[in-house]
């Protein structure tokens, strides 16, 4: 069920209506069943996998909490990590590693025949796996007690708004909300509805329209890559992926608020970042903070000298890249960000004044273009395609349809830039969040009208569903 389809809104309306008619315990039971239905809508076999994975971690967490022997606790932690990452690794990376090994052996002229399995990637597996790992690690370090109710734990993992593409919820943030009764709050409900409308605007109007230009540029419909094609494709994809994923996150947060839950903010005007580090504080915040807390800091963070800090940064970003998909393009994308973060750290270390040398708007433009450059690898189907696209920087061509393409792109990207500038200056989570009720209603209805007239005509899957 995609968030921008009629069936989802029927589903959501029924779930919210029934949910508020039930008592607390039945609310959780009902939401768990609804979330399973939401997930099983794709393929019931994926549902079995997710339930099995949830059950394993539920029991391991309780066992860890009930065991005093540190060696057993550690063994249980390792067992959980092995199970979780094995499932993720098999479904997401088996063919990638098999193919990479085959390519490497072939390059060394070693004859090899490796199995290639037709594996379908279960939706949202990367998201719920990370959430389960965070839970187990937090229980192991006694940051929170394990849930003794499978319903509560199951709901924390599978609550349908975040199930497929996040935001990745921290156990300490969401689990207590699941475990306590929730009261209907009109403020939260109203905010939720506006978040859903703003999210749909970002997805259907901005992302799905920019996707047309990005797909045409990367797919060769504008001819071989040249400077205008590269600019069109890269800018279009930059706004597409931002609109797509931030739109999804807004809809997820809005749906959660309709049921009395709060999800963390996942995007905070990322294209207004003035450094790469700042970009990662604004982009996919739930993932970047997860990587920081469960990978970068356990690796040592910046506590063991400069060289190890750079190593940890690179490792974190490389694995963060690989998390997005089983393709070397994502590894390069993560590597470029890791290298950028390391270089930035090297340049500014001990010299905080260097960050003030350039006007902030110039730094924002530079960072935006660095991020755009890395998006080429993220979007391209292969390293070869990414390289072909980059070679366009050395070629020039002009076609009669380019002015229309640039105008089209401007029409669908500038509004989101203006929204971000407004949010940055106001500090609001969404447009008119601090205004009185009338302008917020007007904003919501304006969003609905723009979606109605300019929303792309067919539902496209959210990009992050594939991760």
């Amino acid at each position, binding site marked *: 069920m995609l968030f921008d389809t009629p069936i989802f809104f029927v589903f959501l309306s029924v779930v919210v209506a029934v949910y508020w008619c039930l008592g607390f315990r039945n609310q959780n039971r009902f939401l768990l069943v609804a979330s399973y239905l939401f997930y099983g809508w794709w393929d019931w076999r994926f549902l079995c996998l997710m339930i099995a994975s949830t059950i394993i971690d539920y029991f391991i967490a309780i066992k860890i909490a009930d065991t005093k022997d540190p060696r057993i606790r550690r063994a249980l932690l390792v067992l959980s990590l092995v199970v979780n990452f094995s499932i993720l690794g098999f479904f997401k990376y088996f063919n990638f590693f098999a193919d990479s090994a085959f390519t490497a052996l072939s390059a060394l002229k070693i004859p090899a025949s490796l199995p290639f399995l037709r594996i379908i990637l279960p939706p949202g597996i990367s998201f719920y796996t990370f959430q389960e790992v965070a839970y187990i690690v937090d229980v192991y370090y006694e940051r929170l007690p394990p849930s003794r109710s499978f319903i509560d734990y199951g709901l924390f993992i599978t609550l349908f708004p975040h199930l497929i593409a996040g935001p990745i919820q921290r156990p300490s943030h969401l689990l207590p909300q699941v475990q306590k009764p929730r009261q209907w709050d*009109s403020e939260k409900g109203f905010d939720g509805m506006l978040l859903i409308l703003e999210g749909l605007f970002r997805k259907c109007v901005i992302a799905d329209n920019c996707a047309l230009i990005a797909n045409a540029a990367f797919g060769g419909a504008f001819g071989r890559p040249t400077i205008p094609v590269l600019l069109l494709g890269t800018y279009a994809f930059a706004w597409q992926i931002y609109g797509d994923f931030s739109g999804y996150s807004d809809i997820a947060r809005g749906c959660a608020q309709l049921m009395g839950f709060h999800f963390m903010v996942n995007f905070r005007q990322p294209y207004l970042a003035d450094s790469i580090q700042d970009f990662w504080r604004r982009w996919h915040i739930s993932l970047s903070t997860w990587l920081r807390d469960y990978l970068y800091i356990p690796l040592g963070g910046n506590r063991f000298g400069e060289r190890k800090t750079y190593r940890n940064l690179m490792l974190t970003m490389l694995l963060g890249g690989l998390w997005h998909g089983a393709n070397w393009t994502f590894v390069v994308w993560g590597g470029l960000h890791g290298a950028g973060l390391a270089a930035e750290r090297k340049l500014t270390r001990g010299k905080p004044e260097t960050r003030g040398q350039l006007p902030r708007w110039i730094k924002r433009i530079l960072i935006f273009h660095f991020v755009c450059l890395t998006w080429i690898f993220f979007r391209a189907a292969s390293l070869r395609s990414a390289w072909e696209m980059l070679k366009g920087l050395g070629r020039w061509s002009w076609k009669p349809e380019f002015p229309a393409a640039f105008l089209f792109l401007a029409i669908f990207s500038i509004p989101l830039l203006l929204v971000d500038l407004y949010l940055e200056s106001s500090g609001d989570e969404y447009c008119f969040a601090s205004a009185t009720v009338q302008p917020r209603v007007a904003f919501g209805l304006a969003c609905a009208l723009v979606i109605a007239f300019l929303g792309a005509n067919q539902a496209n899957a959210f990009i992050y569903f594939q991760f």
Partner: protein
Amino acid sequence: MHSSTSSFDAGGLPVAATRSTMTARKGIIALLLGLAVILLGLETASPFILTHLSRIERRVENETRDARALGPFTADGRPTVLLTGNSLLIEGVQMDALHDTLAPQYEVSRLAIEQTHYLDWYFGIRRLLEQGSHPSVIILSLATDQLASRFTLGESFAHRQMSIRDFPLAVREANLDKTTASTYLFAHWSNWLADKGFIRQDVLILLVPNFRDLAARIADHGPHVNDPSVLLRMAQQRLPELHDLSETYGVKIVLLVPPTLHQDHSQEVQELGENSGVPVWVLVSPGEFSRDLFRDGFHLNRQGSQIFTERLADQIRTKIGDIPPGK
């Protein structure tokens, strides 16, 4: 760090709302009412908006209405011929010339919708015939890869061409996932869902100069069937379906393959047609028309369409009588 308007503290737990609950409740009611008015307004007005904005839509509406009213013969006894297809038909056949040439013997009319493929027309013709249309002959113009395609025109197809009885079959044939299938179901009953893509396109034509040229380049025409074995397998499956349709409704059905620059395996499809009982007309061999008879490599230009129209007129005049009637 949440904004000051959030109803949660930094730890994510509820705190007292900063604005009056009564106001927010009124806001929810106003928003829901406003959304309901917008939805109802769009649902009611979208056909009018579309026909007002779009010349193409007015043409399709007129052609559909005329096609529904077709009987096997005109009042003066001439057999009726209905040409159906997509932009290859619109740009490839000069209807006025064809109509004038054949007027003494046949009444020729057209129902063409851009970006349509086999499934649009298989279900579209079924629905048309169910609704009482009964031309003597239906000529379905499709390129061979369009014959093999699983692509449909989405919500518009679900609304205009798919009957609700055919919904399960359409889902299976188009290989739709559950979400898309549900959207088709909603679109079958909703004017707005069916029309919104066209309205958006017309709004963009107003906003972006030369948008038509851009749209032609960036439009998603669905996956092309390039593998000849897949193409012929699908043709082998689908030509008998057309034959069954012909038998069920007692209408002659012909497949017309438009000219192409490249090998399209139309000769093999023609042989399959002979075995299936569906005539496949290949009036121009692949590559026979040179590039200068095409506007863009796919659609014929004026000169190309003139030659093709003459050949089609000859074919209709001389061959239609040979086609066995449906039962």
